[in-house]
């Protein structure tokens, strides 16, 4: 069973990435027989370097990616230090759910309106400040990419908070905090000197995922980032869709460059880790109790709450726009309301919703079965997880999507498969599987294995143990993993675009397409649905186990863990 699962994972998830990278790499060096390019050469790189604004695009990608990751990490750590012990993990997770559930594109569309010079915040200020015209500021699509950094942080701070909260359950924080404070260190210092060094190894991989994502994000950068030039990943997406097919070659060179950037950023993080570890020890040995770190903790808490408030406003603005009819500057609320945007199925949201739900359910179900098969296979083989297996699971999240999706597209076409629903399911599963697997692994291994042994001693074979004991006991984490899978599937933009030939219309592809249109009301409908669907999945993941286990005290309160 274990070898079957491994074969499926390697063939289904690893091969397309490797082969996709290989194809992209060949195109980067001039070989793409499909367009008649058969001789290896460096000219794609020449073409890439000659693109106007390339160096700015690279600088933008690096700045936005590093700034978003670094600031998100600082805020998440600071916020955890400030509220740990005052807020239970369950409450925290529940508060963060809307931010985790809402796809990047939905948040970005909402933020673009909230932050614009003529946006919601400005409209609220316009009346009291007597603004006749919106200020001529670039507060979205700004040339430095600050709006993009804010957008990424709205998604990543909650993600990192959740990851840190989960890691903290493995560390006796309360006792260590008491010990540290008894020795005269302030809360913030105990956190930085004692707790964080233990937390870091547990969150390193998720931080790398955030870093890789931030450096290569496309949908959010399209909506919030600068356009002239845009970030590297957006520039490459544009090149890939240019009518001049010759540009596919420099685009592929750029896709390899994007991969190099991500690898370099990983290297930078590794160096920083070494440096901080060394300097940190020197600092720690000096034993300085220092001045109070409380103001800094307050700052982090304030900034995090402000960020979450802006994010909540962004999601709210989607719903308000979807119900508006006429809403011009400087009205703080729509001048007239209408259900027309919802009432016209001709705008196509019903079909996009159906497609999105079908894709999410199919890819999540597939990945869930595969993840359960993997974990059960480990149980039956009595094998612990190998390190390489962990790397394998994270791999699709660490490689920039744009670096291999084009190559994968070429391969699929060449193998004669029709691009459509199933190829999109496949492409989405590359990203759904890791999250489902990560979400399920810890609860699976933390469960009470005496239940399995008891069941075996009562004569239950492996299948009966799996279906009658393990899965029912793990119902809550299985449901949570499914909800995460749905959220990941709904949010996918590039994989749906590249492997659906544009025919598979989802809420996300529609929302991103329509975000460059004039009708915010229709975009509001798509954005609201896009955020609502994963949220519904999370709600079900909470209520299904609660309802089924309402008379089972020992299984209650385990959802959202």
């Amino acid at each position: 069973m274990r070898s079957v699962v491994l074969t499926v994972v390697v063939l289904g998830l690893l091969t397309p990435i490797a082969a996709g990278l290989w194809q992209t790499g060949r195109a980067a060096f001039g070989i793409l027989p499909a367009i008649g390019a058969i001789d290896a050469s460096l000219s794609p790189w020449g073409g890439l370097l000659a693109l106007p604004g390339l160096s700015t695009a690279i600088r933008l990608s690096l700045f936005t990616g590093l700034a978003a990751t670094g600031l998100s990490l600082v805020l998440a750590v600071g916020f955890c230090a400030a509220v740990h012990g005052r807020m239970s993990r369950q409450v925290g997770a529940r508060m963060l759910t809307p931010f985790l559930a809402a796809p990047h594109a939905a948040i970005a569309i909402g933020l673009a309106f909230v932050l614009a010079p003529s946006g919601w915040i400005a409209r609220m200020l316009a009346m009291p400040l007597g603004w006749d015209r919106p200020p001529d500021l670039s507060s979205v699509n700004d040339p430095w990419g600050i709006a993009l950094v804010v957008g990424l942080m709205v998604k990543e701070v909650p993600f990192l908070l959740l990851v840190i909260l989960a890691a903290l359950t493995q560390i006796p924080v309360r006792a260590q905090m008491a010990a540290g404070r008894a020795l005269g260190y302030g809360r913030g210092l105990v956190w930085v000197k004692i707790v964080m060094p233990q937390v870091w190894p547990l969150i390193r991989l998720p931080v790398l995922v955030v870093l890789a994502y931030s450096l290569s994000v496309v949908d959010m950068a399209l909506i919030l980032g600068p356009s002239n030039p845009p970030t590297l990943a957006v520039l490459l997406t544009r090149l890939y869709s240019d009518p001049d097919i010759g540009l596919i070659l420099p685009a592929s060179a750029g896709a390899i460059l994007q991969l190099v950037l991500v690898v370099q950023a990983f290297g930078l993080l590794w160096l920083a880790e070494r440096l901080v570890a060394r300097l940190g020890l020197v600092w720690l040995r000096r034993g300085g109790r220092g001045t109070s770190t409380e103001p800094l903790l307050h700052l982090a808490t304030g900034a995090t709450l402000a960020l979450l408030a802006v994010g909540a406003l962004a999601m709210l603005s989607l719903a308000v726009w979807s119900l508006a009819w006429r809403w011009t500057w400087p009205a703080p609320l729509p001048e007239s309301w209408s259900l027309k945007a919802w009432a016209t199925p001709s705008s196509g949201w019903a079909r996009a919703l159906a497609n999105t739900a079908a894709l999410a359910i199919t890819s999540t179900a597939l990945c869930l079965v595969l993840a359960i098969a993997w974990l059960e296979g480990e149980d039956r083989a009595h094998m612990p997880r190998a390190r390489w297996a962990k790397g394998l699971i994270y791999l699709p999240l660490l490689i920039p999507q744009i670096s291999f999706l084009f190559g994968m597209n070429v391969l699929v076409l060449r193998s004669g498969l029709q691009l459509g629903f199933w190829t999109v399911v496949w492409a989405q599963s590359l990203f759904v599987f890791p999250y489902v697997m990560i979400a399920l692994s810890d609860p699976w291994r933390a469960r009470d294995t005496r239940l399995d042994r008891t069941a075996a001693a009562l004569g239950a074979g492996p299948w009966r143990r799996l279906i009658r004991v393990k899965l029912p006991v793990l119902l809550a984490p299985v449901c949570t993993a499914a909800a995460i899978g749905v959220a990941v599937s709904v949010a996918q933009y590039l994989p749906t675009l590249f492997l659906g030939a544009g025919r598979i219309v989802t809420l996300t592809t529609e929302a991103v397409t329509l975000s460059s249109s004039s009708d915010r009301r229709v975009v509001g409908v798509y954005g609201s649905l896009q955020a609502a669907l994963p949220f519904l999945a999370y709600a079900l993941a909470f209520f299904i186990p609660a309802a089924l286990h309402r008379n089972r005290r020992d299984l209650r309160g385990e959802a959202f863990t």
Partner: protein
Amino acid sequence: MSLKFSTALIALMLATPALADDWQTTLDAARGQTVYWNAWGGDDRTNAFIAWVGQETERLYGVKVEQVKLTDTAEAVTRVVSEKAAGLDDGGSVDLIWINGPNFLAMKDQGLLHGPFVADLPNARYLDLSPTSPNAVDFTVPVDGMESPWRLAKFVFIYDSARVDAPPTSMAGFVDWAAANPGRFTHPDPSNFMGATFLKQALIELVPDPTTLQSPVTDEAFAAATTPLWAWYDALRLNLWRGGESFPDNQSVQQQLMNDGEIDMAMSFDPASTAGAIAQGLLPDTARVFVPEGGSIGNVSFVAIPYNAANAEGAEVVANFLLDPATQAHMQNIEVLGSFSVLDPAKLDDAAKAAFAALPNAPALPALADLGPTLLEPHASWMTRLTEEWARRYTK
């Protein structure tokens, strides 16, 4: 029967000009097909119109239409290119593309189009297909029956009459207006069709010798023709929205900026879109249309069928339906789409003429006479050079 004879027979059959029987064959083959119409999806009214077209063709001919909404028409071209690259010479995923200009030139040059088919469409009899008609020349490139017209486009400016007293009367006048109203004017990014058209409109007015624009561009001609343009643009750019550092992606975003009060003018390729947008609650009631006194660029939007389309017959049926006088009148209704018809009024029968005459009116809808003369599009190669040069100069 000898092989030679049957070959000759097949050749003869293929060479036979379109007859009613052939169209019946097309209709029969088309029944039950689903046409994937790849069309820019940024305009909800157009999307709704396409959905309506699909309902009608399904009702009349059993042909369904699925719109594949594009952010840029080039996406569809890339798709066909990659299918060709993969050897997918039939059963392709794109059946019909809303296309014109450089995308058409690219596909035509690479042999990616099905056709010629336009003359075979029964409703082609309402079209003026003479060699110099806008229906027969797309950006100076001969259409050769490889794409079928469906809507007329004419470049116009939109301004908010509540904020702007006197809009500029010439492209040169925009420099003065922007200087007097800094930060209140912008244009879409020239990598977008509308932004490029804005530059072309200025180029036509400012170029020393307009005839050079009708031939393919050369380095020499480009330098001579564009020197005044860049001088004009440098003066204008200083006073653009955001200091000319960033630009809206397309005319829809620009229209939204105007509704948001961030700018006072927008652009459109559709003279009726302003009246439509007001009715839709997307522009203030005070929005109006103007064109420079010298006239503005006009062209025709086409649909083309890729060489490997899986549902080429269905696509032809849709292209023919688009040319039906009733369809065109419905399309010209500002409550529907408000795009001007591509049909030749002289070729219409009385019933069709009456249908056009009965269409509703609106204050923001310009009369055809107010729109001035139609300027010819420069050769497509000019647009490519123009946008590249713009990107080189102003992208840092």
